[in-house]
């Protein structure tokens, strides 16, 4: 096709919605056009997965619109996409609504596919540019982000960082201005670990008007980069060469790492209260004390149906999710997006749910 970068010889790209291409009917390899939409956090990983998937299924054309989790779920519920990406689990009424999309009265389910540590990034002359970390516990971070701590040399910070010479710079908090799964996952850490310092309800919108808001992860990162004394939060892959905060876990401070994130999830339980079949929803255990675990994590899901009106789509989704959750797929994502591979425990649950997708 004109200008497609893949070596694959798929021709006449017409980017339509779910496949209606009937030239091949064998179950493997997959071919046709498939669409997904949703969380922008997954975008880099999806790009890698698409490339990896097409390695074995060169005739599958897959498009992902990183329009946002909410938009992704909305579009999925209209039936225009084969799957959705979302930074949070399905809401109960979304599960109900999905009956109209999924075949045979089944309801949609969500499985974790992408785990990424959320970095608390900062820009502070003499510290971040020297490649140093700052240690903080949950309450300190919460107070900073609530505007209670306003100077970098505040006692609360200094006490935890005896080795650092902290300047008397004002702290500028940078947070997301748009509705964001990253925000929700970030503040849920405060709710669990520092409930006294963080009184706000859990929401995807930033709750106070401290500091500055910026659109998207890119907005936060570029804002943090632009001035001295800033602190914000962003997907680890976007942190670049900014300084990152080491978070207190147990008695130690953990630096951010993909492994650390995997460890937290490994130590977390599933939320058994969720409605609907086949769903795998992680209740992140922010209180983990596992050595090296990094507790501020974003878990992002893919949403699919157990049965589709169209077999080809079902075949594709099954094969696609299988690849995505495989260790191969997780490795690819980790390379491309710096994400944390799914722990085996979750991968197995995912596999069970994927197995439930009917392809005949």
């Amino acid at each position, binding site marked *: 096709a004109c200008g497609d970068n893949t070596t694959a010889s798929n021709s006449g790209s017409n980017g339509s919605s779910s496949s209606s291409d009937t030239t091949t009917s064998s179950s493997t390899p997959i071919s046709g056009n498939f669409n997904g939409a949703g969380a922008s956090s997954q975008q880099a990983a999806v790009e890698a997965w698409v490339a990896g998937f097409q390695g074995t299924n060169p005739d599958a054309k897959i498009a992902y619109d990183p329009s946002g989790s909410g*938009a992704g779920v909305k579009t999925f519920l209209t039936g225009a996409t084969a799957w959705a990406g979302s930074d949070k689990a399905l809401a109960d009424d979304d599960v109900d609504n999905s009956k109209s999309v999924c075949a045979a009265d089944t309801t949609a389910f969500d499985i974790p596919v992408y785990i990424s540590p959320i970095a608390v990034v900062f820009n502070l002359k003499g510290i971040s540019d020297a490649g140093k970390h700052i240690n903080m516990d949950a309450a300190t971070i919460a107070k900073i982000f609530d505007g209670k701590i306003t100077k970098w040399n505040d006692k609360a910070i200094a006490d935890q960082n005896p080795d650092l010479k902290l300047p008397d710079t004002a702290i500028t908090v940078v947070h997301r201005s748009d509705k964001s799964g990253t925000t929700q996952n970030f503040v849920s850490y405060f709710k669990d670990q520092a409930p006294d310092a963080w009184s706000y309800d859990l929401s995807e919108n930033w709750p106070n008007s401290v*500091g500055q808001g910026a659109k998207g992860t890119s907005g936060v990162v570029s804002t943090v980069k632009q001035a001295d004394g800033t602190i914000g939060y962003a997907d680890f892959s976007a942190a670049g060469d900014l300084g990152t905060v080491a978070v207190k876990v147990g008695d130690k401070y953990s630096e951010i790492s993909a492994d650390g994130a995997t460890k937290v999830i490994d130590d977390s339980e599933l939320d058994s209260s969720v409605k609907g079949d086949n769903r795998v929803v992680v209740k992140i255990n922010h209180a983990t004390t596992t050595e090296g675990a990094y507790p501020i994590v974003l878990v992002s899901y893919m949403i699919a149906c157990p049965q589709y009106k169209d077999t080809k789509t079902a075949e594709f989704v099954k094969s696609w999710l299988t690849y995505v959750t495989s260790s191969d797929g997780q490795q690819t994502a980790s390379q491309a997006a710096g994400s944390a591979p799914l722990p085996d425990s979750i991968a197995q649950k995912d596999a069970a749910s994927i197995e439930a997708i009917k392809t005949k």
Partner: protein
Amino acid sequence: MSSQEKAAMMPAASGKTADKVFRAIAYACGILILVVLAAVFLFLLFRAWPLIGGDQKANSQTISDFTGGKSSSFWGYVGPLLFGTVLVSALALLISFFVSLGIALFISHYAPKKLATALSYVVDLLAAIPSVIYGLWGGLILVPAIYPFWNWIATYFGWIPLFAGPAASPSRTVATVAVVLAVMILPIITSLSRDIFLQAPRLQQEAALALGATKWEMIKLAVLPFGKSGVVSASMLGLGRALGETMAVLMILSPGLTYSFKLLQASQNQTIAANIAAQYPEANDLGVSVLIGTGLVLFLITFVVNYVARKITEKKVA
């Protein structure tokens, strides 16, 4: 001679039907303009309907979710947005107005002809630069570059409430956005004003000069009064553009939902257009209705602003 006569005398196709059809098409296209505007209003109203006719509890839930609990009524949400929209655009207009007039006069009355032609071309080109590019430039280049200036203002003019410090760093503030919007609407106002100044009657300009006026006095006597209504409508066009600008605001401003005039501080105001773009991707169905409701308000506001402006200029001309 007979052959010419033959040619000339040959009966012409009457073309009466063609005449009627053509007229009808033209008429229909004129009417279509009215239909389109009505359609814009109706479709928006229809999509925003759940706000009025829907479950009020769910509505206030959605809105308090948008505002982080600060407000649960639609007007409590739109109010600050509207305030921010008007504040930012009015500032942008204020900044660019005088500069635009200066450039327009420079092109029409001061620059040598060759330079003026070249400048006109550049101005027209700048008017076509997409707003994402201004957004990129504003967010990545201007924001860090302008901080020392705002800091200076906040230090020395901080006693004026408008410039109350400390200046936010980085300067993702209303002031910075206003500057970017001013740069964006500058070419529009300039190019329209220039056209009008160029049309100022030579006769009156010569009359002024012949009375012994200096060049500036001539401009004051014969050019500015002539161009007044045109300049007003050019400004309104610029204001309209600023009111509706989305991407540049979205990419630069640190938003807030307050009725605040602190231009140099972050998280004070937000505009309707940028708010729609920011919230739209993650909004659920009801959220989309709320956002479309705010869009409807924006539509009505721009409608009123333009309408009033046209009426004013119409009266002046008459």
